[in-house]
């Protein structure tokens, strides 16, 4: 019946996907607190996701701050409000731009990496082999990756925000004759806990979403090399969309809490 209506098929598959993802997430939380803990693999994944992404996040963050300040400066100068640049840039970066841009970068790097890695393991039946050898593949491959992504992403975002502010301060120092001390003084004058804490809170959910979708797509990829590519691609696409949904919910909740 549904085959006659492509729209209905799409809706059905969408809800099926959501249901499967939820079950996958439930399985993650179930396995998270049960022994044995794959601590070494978790640390390895943290290193792979955290340290290996550091350069990418650093360069992206630095250019983000640099460009954002350069682009905002003429308009604010025209308005006679160039002294507001540190406040405006810091609030924008810490609250929204930094977390979202860095999460999207990480979705591309980490999400696709997890999707491709698990997808190829699935295709080459390594996951089945692990099961045969008595290792819990979900615990070893999925839990460690999701947990590592969840914990590493906030750190990457904090690092990225900091580098972005340094980039912005550099532009202000060169173009606006504003010292680094004055710049960061104004930054911390403008920033409050209502800027920092919700942004940090939502970055955990960003990390969780990247890890979860990447693992889900890789773990459930179809057979063949095309399936690996599809898993990696869809992991990035779904994660990016999910990031914006999480961001919207986070901003909505922040507004509700802080008014």
């Amino acid at each position, binding site marked *: 019946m549904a085959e006659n209506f492509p729209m209905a098929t799409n809706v059905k598959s969408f809800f099926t996907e959501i249901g499967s993802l939820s079950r996958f997430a439930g399985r993650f939380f179930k396995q998270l607190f049960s022994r044995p803990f794959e601590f*070494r693999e978790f*640390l*390895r994944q*943290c*290193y792979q996701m*955290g*340290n290996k992404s*550091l350069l990418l996040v650093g360069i992206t963050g630095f250019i983000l701050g640099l460009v954002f300040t350069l682009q905002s400066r003429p308009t604010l100068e025209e308005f006679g*409000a160039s002294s507001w640049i540190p406040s405006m840039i810091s609030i924008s970066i810490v609250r929204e731009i930094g977390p979202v841009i860095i999460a999207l970068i990480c979705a591309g790097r980490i999400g696709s990496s997890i999707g491709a890695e698990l997808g190829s393991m699935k295709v080459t039946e390594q996951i089945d082999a692990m099961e045969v050898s008595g290792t819990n593949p979900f615990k070893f491959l999925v839990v460690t990756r999701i947990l590592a992504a969840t914990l590493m992403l*906030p*750190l*990457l975002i*904090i*690092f990225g925000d*900091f580098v972005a502010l340094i980039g912005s301060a550099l532009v202000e120092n060169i173009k606006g004759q504003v010292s680094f001390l004055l710049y*960061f003084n104004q930054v*911390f*004058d403008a*920033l*409050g*806990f209502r800027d*920092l804490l919700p942004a*940090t809170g939502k970055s955990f959910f960003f990390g969780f979403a990247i890890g979860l979708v990447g693992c889900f797509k890789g773990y459930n990829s179809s057979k063949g090399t095309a399936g690996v590519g599809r898993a990696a691609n869809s992991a990035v696409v779904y994660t990016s969309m999910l990031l914006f949904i999480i961001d919207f919910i986070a901003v909505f909740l922040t507004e509700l809490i802080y008014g």
Partner: protein
Amino acid sequence: MKNSNPQNLKLGIFVILGIAIFVAAVYFIGNRQNLFGDSSVITSVFKDVNGLQRGNNVRFAGVNVGTVQNIRILNDTSIAVSMRIDDRTMKLVRKNSLATISSDGLVGSMIVNLLPGENDSLASKPLQPGDTIASISKIATADMLTTLSTTNENAALLTADLLKITNSINEGKGTIGVLIKDEEMANNFKQSIEGLRQSTSTISRMVNRVNVILDEVSYKESVAGVLLSDTIAARQIEGIISNLEISALQISDVTTNLQQFSYDIRQGEGALDYILNNPGAVEQLDATLKNIEEATRKFDENMEALQHNILLRGYFKKQARIKAREETQMD
């Protein structure tokens, strides 16, 4: 496994670095909000807080010394603002201080300013934790903008009127318009100016002539000179004027007496009033006068007769001789 130790080291550095940045950010933000240092809470009650929010700065002599901790509405005209102030500053702020809410720049966020107060009895006492200080309300930016808006509206009306006036002038309407646009008027005006110039020239010449005449006046010989320069003449004139004043006073008295006299005549019952007010009396008086005239004439005739009387002729001759002698002596 050999690579795990350097990896762990790098991971550890990254994690600690990330956490350190986060903790530093929390510390700096918290420090701005006086969360970590020793601080005390004071309160001030305002009628209107003009959009003040929790976390806004509190300034003392232009220095950030605390933040707004809480804002509570007590009733429809009272809003209590609790402020967390650094303890080091608390010693410097006096009990008579006044809190005022103002804007940090034209488009800046609101701030609370602590100002020195006027109540001298409290000036020596430093602020204590939990104290409530008085507040004053300044003109808010919104009020300022409202005033500015009214001024702008007035300026718009003025410019609109000015535009109408300039348009009218350009179209040659009204006195100024005619003055500027009408060539005939301009010519008339030019002629008037020319006439005025000539008049001025004539007046100038006249003034010069008057000056010459004045220069030629001999102060010692002419009447004007005497009047202007002779002090004796001045005293005499002064005396004359004084006499004139006295005479005027006397004339005034005489006039008053005459007025009184005529009043008395009109009001009184004497002979004159009788004569004036009784037409029959005048006729009688006229008749009496005629009789007297007649009697006088007859008396003259009698006297003439007496002079020729023999009894009295000697007396009259004697009188004539005495008179003649006196006239001779006089000559």
